[in-house]
């Protein structure tokens, strides 16, 4: 579903990603962990080209998105993204936030987009907030709306960039719950997170990144209980 080959990314002379190779299978939930500055967010942002990559190839469903001829806007409709800072549109109500892209990008008629938005709001438990503006919501509610907004495009892949890192601790659970449901439904997901509990419970595979490299990857139980690399051990001893 996603194939990343020899991905390199530099900001000026600072090499953030050094030769990343990853394959994500359909319906797989891949969790990326690692210390801050390890390049895990940059890696995730490369998958839908929010960062221009320096070298290498990324294939989504066999299409090379790094090829200049590829219509990236078309690819992005298949790849939903959820941000740490939610990035809801503050000038639009919750339901308008969800309806905007389907209507403008996919030309979905108003009633159909509205019905879909209400269905998604029900799914994330916020149908009573449809007409509210984002500023009146709590962090957890905002993030659930952001997930609904991404799902409205009916993506095949969902990318989560530290979705709970900006939340108060008591709101982390409600967002993770929505993500768990999504994983159960068979969504292909790549999740950058510091929530080790989520990684263990939901992840099919955990990737540990440090210094712009993939240090180790394994099924969660193995990686958390029997880490092979010293850097993985050092990191896990700090966070677990």
């Amino acid at each position, binding site marked *: 579903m996603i194939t990343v080959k020899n991905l390199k990314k530099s900001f000026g002379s600072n090499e953030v990603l050094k030769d990343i190779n990853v394959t994500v299978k359909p319906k797989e939930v891949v969790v990326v962990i690692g210390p801050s500055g390890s390049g895990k967010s940059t890696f995730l942002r490369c998958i839908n080209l929010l960062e221009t990559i320096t070298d290498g190839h990324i294939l989504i469903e066999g299409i090379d998105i790094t090829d200049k001829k590829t219509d990236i806007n078309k690819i*992005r*409709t298949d790849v939903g*993204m959820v*941000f740490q800072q939610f990035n809801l*549109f503050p000038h639009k109500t919750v339901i308008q936030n969800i309806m*905007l892209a389907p209507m*403008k*990008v996919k030309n979905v008629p108003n009633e159909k987009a509205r019905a879909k938005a209400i269905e998604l709001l029900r799914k994330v438990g916020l149908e009573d907030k449809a007409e509210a503006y984002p500023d009146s919501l709590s962090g957890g509610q905002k993030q659930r709306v952001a997930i609904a907004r991404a799902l409205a495009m009916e993506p095949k892949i969902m990318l989560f960039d530290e979705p709970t890192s900006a939340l108060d601790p008591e709101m982390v659970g409600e967002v993770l719950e929505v993500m768990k449901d999504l994983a159960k439904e068979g969504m292909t997901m790549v999740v950058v997170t510091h929530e080790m509990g989520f990684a263990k419970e939901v992840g099919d595979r955990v990737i540990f990144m440090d210094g712009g490299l993939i240090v180790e990857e394994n099924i969660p139980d193995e990686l958390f209980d029997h880490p092979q690399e010293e850097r993985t051990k050092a990191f896990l001893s700090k966070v677990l």
Partner: protein
Amino acid sequence: MDIRWDILAEYAPFFAKGTLLTIGLSIASIIIGCLLGLFIGLGKLTKNKWIAFPFNCYITFFRGTPLLVQILLVHFGLVPLFVGETNGIIAAITALSLNSAAYVAEIFRGGIQSIDKGQMEAARSLGMNHVQAMRFVILPQAFKRMIPPLGNEFIVLIKDSSLAAIIAVKELMYWGQAMQGQYYRAWEPYITAALIYLVLTFSLSLLLSRLERRLATE
């Protein structure tokens, strides 16, 4: 101090006509200035330095030289070059528009840049192209933030339109000076003109603060 109401009554129709022309000059210049300003602001925002360069020059010139000089240049230089003869009203509107476009461009640029870059990323990640993201996500938010500085700019423009009196455009200030010249009175013409300008600028700021309240999202 005695006030000569009789000369005020005599000049009342001229002040009325002058006020209408002042309003006309201002509205025309605001509209042209905004359109041109948006274009120049976006031009300055382009990442390509060579494309942005002429827009930078434009802004530097029109912000850095006196409006009076610009009005005289346009009136005696630019307009005759294109139309063949001088025309005060065309010159006034042209000079005021060109001048305010430079300020409006900076207001647009500031407004657009003040929007968090996560907004553009979110819009693009949903599959919108750059133009759609600008139109549906960035500009509506930027516009709301631009209202107060734009209001300032429009008020400055209304007041600056009085400089058109120098090139004999028969707007409000022109009649004020005509009245002063005829009767050698200072208070009646200039206080009258000042009060009318005040009414115009105050009405505009009321209008804009109502618009701002309507666009509030809380």
